[in-house]
């Protein structure tokens, strides 16, 4: 009887020692308390907040172009318009690429993604409605998309600003006798 008792106690102690091992404990805990995963509505809400972030980034870059265009520039009006137009096209390309990334992150593929991008892109031209909305703490995956787009928006706007404010090169005078 006492031998059985000792065997049971030994098994219990070995079991406890095994439970103390990190990998075993982590696996059991993950099985018993699975990590919470967001539902479709929560993802949609995060996605909308990310879209508003993209709209604000795009709007900020367009505002920078507009403000630069309002000062006296060393380039002609036609050149300035062309530079601004090209920059706006580039900004929209960045925005569409970011929307494609958002669609992928939200699980949209193929036609669903294309429909989403076409429907959402024009809505983001005017960010005034979301300019001062309370921020939403984005999932890291969504934040990375917004942050990358912000960097590219700034890059495009800065490049256009440089082109607008730099006098076109004039041929240097050739020496005369």
């Amino acid at each position, binding site marked *: 009887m006492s031998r059985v008792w000792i065997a049971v*106690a030994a098994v219990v102690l070995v079991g406890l020692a095994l439970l103390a091992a990190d990998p075993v404990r982590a696996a059991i805990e993950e099985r018993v308390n699975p990590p919470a995963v967001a539902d479709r509505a929560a993802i949609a809400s995060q996605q909308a907040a990310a879209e508003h972030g993209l709209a604000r980034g795009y709007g900020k870059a367009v505002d920078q172009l507009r403000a630069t265009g309002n000062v006296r520039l060393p380039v002609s009006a036609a050149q300035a318009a062309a530079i601004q137009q090209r920059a706006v096209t580039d900004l929209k390309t960045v925005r569409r690429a970011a929307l494609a990334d958002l669609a992928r992150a939200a*699980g949209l593929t193929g036609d669903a993604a294309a429909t989403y991008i076409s429907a959402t892109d024009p809505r983001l031209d005017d960010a005034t409605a979301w300019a001062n909305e309370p921020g939403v*703490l984005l999932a890291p*995956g969504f934040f990375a998309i917004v942050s990358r787009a912000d960097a590219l928006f700034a890059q495009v706007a800065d490049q256009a600003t440089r082109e607008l404010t730099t006098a076109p090169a004039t041929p240097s005078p050739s020496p005369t006798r």
Partner: protein
Amino acid sequence: MRVAGWVRWLVLPALAGALLGATVDPSRLPPVAGERIDAVLLLDGQAYFGHLEDFGFSDTVTLRDVYYFQDARAATTNLPVALVQRGGEVHAPADGMQIRRDKILAIEHVNLSSAVAKAIAAQREIERLVR
């Protein structure tokens, strides 16, 4: 082999109790209470969020599935901070994060309805969808 009564009723239960005490994190009882996310606030002001393993016998605590705040004032999210998932750094930390106990200012449980918990749950769903 005969075990004395006092060994059976005193020493062995005490041994089992000591082992249990070292194995089970009392803050995680009952074990089916749902996911537990903790915030570990460090003396230097940094905060890390994740699944905490805190056992009295160690001078470190271990945090797994780690997230932390990053300055996001330059971003257009209308928030000064953003949540970042640990693991994307240059050295790609892989197996949890061990934090020295003497560098910790406070440990707090994260409410599952909080912005941090929601963002973490959304990130898990994004990872599932992208996979």
